[in-house]
C-alpha cells in the first residue's frame, strides 16, 4: 500500500515541479521536495522503500531538473556533486530514520515489559502478603478453637476418670469436634492456593509405622492389619512425610468408620512401576461404581450410609488434595469379595537399592 502511495507522491511531485520548471524554481527546492518524499517513504515503508525512493529521486533530479533538461548528462561539475550529495543525504537519513524508529519501538517494548514485570512483582508481593495473613488467621482461629476444646476435654476426662458416664460422652464428642476443626483447617489451607510441601527421601515403613502409632487410641484401631514384607528390599519414595501421614490416617479413619465393627482394615505398601502404592482395604459397604470419583468430593455421602456414622465428610477430599499437592494420586475401587480399596500413589525414589556397608 505505502509503496504505491509514496511512488504516487514521487510522480506527482515530479509532474508539479516539471510544470513549474521554467519559472523561478531553483534546484535546491526540487531536492528538498524529493528529500521530503524519501523521508516520508522511509517512515512508512522502512529501509527498502526509503532506499529505492532515494535512487528513483536521484535519477529524476538528474533527468528532469539538471541542465540540460530531459536527458542524462551533467552540464556542470557542481551538478554531479549536488546529485551525489542528494543521493547520500537521502540514503543516510533513510538509514538513520529507520534505525531511530526501531530503537524507539524497542524502548517501548522494554517499557511495556518492565511495566508488566513490575505489575507482576506487585501482584506476587500481594499474594505473599495474602498468604502470610491467611497463615496468621488460620493460626489464630486454630488457637482460638483449640483452647476451649483443650479445656473441655481435660475437665471432662477428669470427671470421666472419676466414673461419670456423661463426661465420657463429652470427651468423645470433643474428640469429634477436634477432628472437624482439624479437617476444616486442612481444607481451608488447601483451598487457599499455593500449598507448600516438603518432598524428601522417605521410606514406606517409616510412614506406615507412624500412621499405625497415630491411629492408636482411635476407636477400632486394633482392627488395622499391616501387610509389609520386611524381608524384601525397603520401599523408598520421594514424598512429604507429614502430609502423607495425614492422607493415610484420613483413609484409615474413613475405613474404620464405615466398615463393620468386627472386620479388619488392611494397610499395605507395594511398588508399582514408578510409584509407591499404599492401599487401605476394608469390608465396608463400598459405594456404587458410578460414585467411584464422587467419594473424593467434599461432603459426599452415599445414601445407604447410616446416619449414625459421624464423619466430617472431608477426609477423602483432603486426602486427594494432599496427594495431588505432591504429584501423587488417589483412587477408589471396589474390593473383590465386597468392600472398598483406597489406593494412594506417591513417587518412588529413583534408586532401587539402599544397602550400606556394615
Amino acid at each position, binding site marked *: 500500500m505505502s509503496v504505491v502511495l509514496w511512488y504516487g507522491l514521487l510522480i506527482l511531485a515530479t509532474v508539479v515541479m516539471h510544470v513549474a520548471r521554467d519559472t523561478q524554481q531553483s534546484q535546491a527546492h526540487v531536492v528538498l521536495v524529493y528529500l521530503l518524499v524519501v523521508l516520508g517513504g522511509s517512515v512508512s515503508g522502512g529501509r527498502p522503500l526509503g532506499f529505492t525512493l532515494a535512487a528513483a529521486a536521484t535519477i529524476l533530479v538528474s533527468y528532469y531538473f539538471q541542465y540540460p533538461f530531459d536527458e542524462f548528462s551533467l552540464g556542470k561539475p557542481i551538478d554531479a556533486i549536488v546529485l551525489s550529495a542528494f543521493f547520500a543525504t537521502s540514503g543516510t537519513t533513510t538509514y538513520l530514520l529507520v534505525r531511530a524508529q526501531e530503537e524507539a519501538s524497542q524502548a517501548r517494548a522494554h517499557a511495556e515489559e518492565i511495566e508488566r514485570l513490575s505489575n507482576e512483582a506487585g501482584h506476587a508481593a500481594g499474594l505473599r502478603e495474602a498468604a502470610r495473613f491467611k497463615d496468621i488467621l488460620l493460626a489464630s482461629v486454630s488457637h482460638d478453637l483449640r483452647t476451649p476444646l483443650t479445656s473441655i476435654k481435660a475437665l471432662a476426662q477428669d470427671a470421666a*476418670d472419676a466414673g461419670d458416664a456423661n463426661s465420657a460422652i463429652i470427651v468423645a464428642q470433643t474428640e469429634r469436634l477436634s477432628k472437624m476443626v482439624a479437617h476444616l483447617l486442612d481444607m481451608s489451607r488447601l483451598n487457599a492456593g499455593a500449598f507448600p510441601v516438603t518432598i524428601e527421601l522417605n521410606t514406606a515403613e517409616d510412614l506406615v509405622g507412624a500412621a499405625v502409632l497415630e491411629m492408636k487410641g482411635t476407636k477400632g484401631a486394633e482392627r488395622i492389619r499391616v501387610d509389609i514384607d520386611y524381608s524384601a528390599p525397603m520401599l523408598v519414595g520421594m514424598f512429604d512425610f507429614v502430609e502423607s501421614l495425614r492422607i493415610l490416617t484420613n483413609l484409615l479413619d474413613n475405613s474404620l468408620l464405615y466398615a463393620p465393627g468386627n472386620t479388619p482394615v488392611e494397610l499395605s505398601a507395594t511398588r508399582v512401576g514408578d510409584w509407591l502404592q499404599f492401599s487401605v482395604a476394608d469390608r465396608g459397604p463400598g459405594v456404587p461404581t458410578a460414585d467411584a470419583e464422587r467419594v473424593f468430593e467434599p461432603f459426599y455421602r452415599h445414601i445407604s450410609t447410616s446416619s449414625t456414622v459421624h464423619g466430617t465428610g472431608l477426609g477423602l477430599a483432603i486426602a486427594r488434595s494432599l496427594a495431588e499437592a505432591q504429584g501423587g494420586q488417589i483412587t477408589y475401587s471396589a474390593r473383590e469379595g465386597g468392600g472398598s480399596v483406597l489406593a494412594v500413589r506417591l513417587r518412588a525414589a529413583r534408586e532401587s537399592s539402599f544397602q550400606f556397608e556394615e
Partner: protein
Amino acid sequence: MVMHPTRTDATVLVIDDEPEIRHAVHSALRSTVARVLDAADARSALATVKAQTPDLIILDLGLPDQSGLDLCRAIRAHSLAPIVVLTARHIESDKVSLLNAGADDYVTKPFSTSEFAARVAAQIRRARTARPGTSGTVEADGMSVNFTARRAHRDGNPVRLTPIEWAILRALTADPGRVYTHQQLFDAVWAREFGDARQYLRVHITNLRRKVERDPTHPRVIITEPGVGYRFGIPLTQETA
C-alpha cells in the same frame, strides 16, 4: 479405668496466658506431680524458674510479652529442667525450632490428659535418670546396646550394625526419650560431611529398625515424631489409651 503414672514429688511450672489451659494442666497433672506452679507471662515465668527451680516446665506458645522461642532460650540459660511445649497441629516448623532451641518434647492441643500426664512423668523420670554416657548399656523393649564393647543384642541375639547406624543409635541414646530433630541428628551423625549423605537419614533409620525392632510396624525402640525427628524409647503416645 485409666491408670495414672506413679505420682512423683516433682514441681511443675505451667506457662500459659490462658487461665483455662492452666486449669486443664492442673487437672491433668493432679495425680502425677506434687505441685503445679503458674505463670501467665514470660517475665513472671523466668522469675519463677530462677526462684523455684521447677523439675519440669510446660510452655504454651503465644504469650503476650515474648515469643515462645526466645523464652525457651532464656529458660535454658538458667535451667536444665525438661521443657514440654504445648502446640497446635499444622505448625511442625514451630515444634522443630523450639526443640532446636532446647525444648525436650511437645504435646499437641487438644491433648488427652492421660497421654499428657504420661509424657510429663516420662520427662521427669528421664531428667532424674543419669545419662548413660558413652560407657553404659542402653536398653529398650528387649534391645540392648553397649557402646564400649560396640555390641548390640536383640532378645539376646547379636545384631550387626553399620557405622552410621551406630552413630544414629549413639545420638538418640545420649538422652533416651528426648526428641531429636532431623537437624540435630544430621549434626551428630554427619557433623563434618555435607551434601548427599544426609538425605539418607530416614533410610538408615528404616534399616536400623529392621534390626532392632521386634515388629517394625509397631516401633518401640526408635519412634518417629512426624515432621520433627526421632526419639529413642518406648512410645509415649497414648500409652494408657
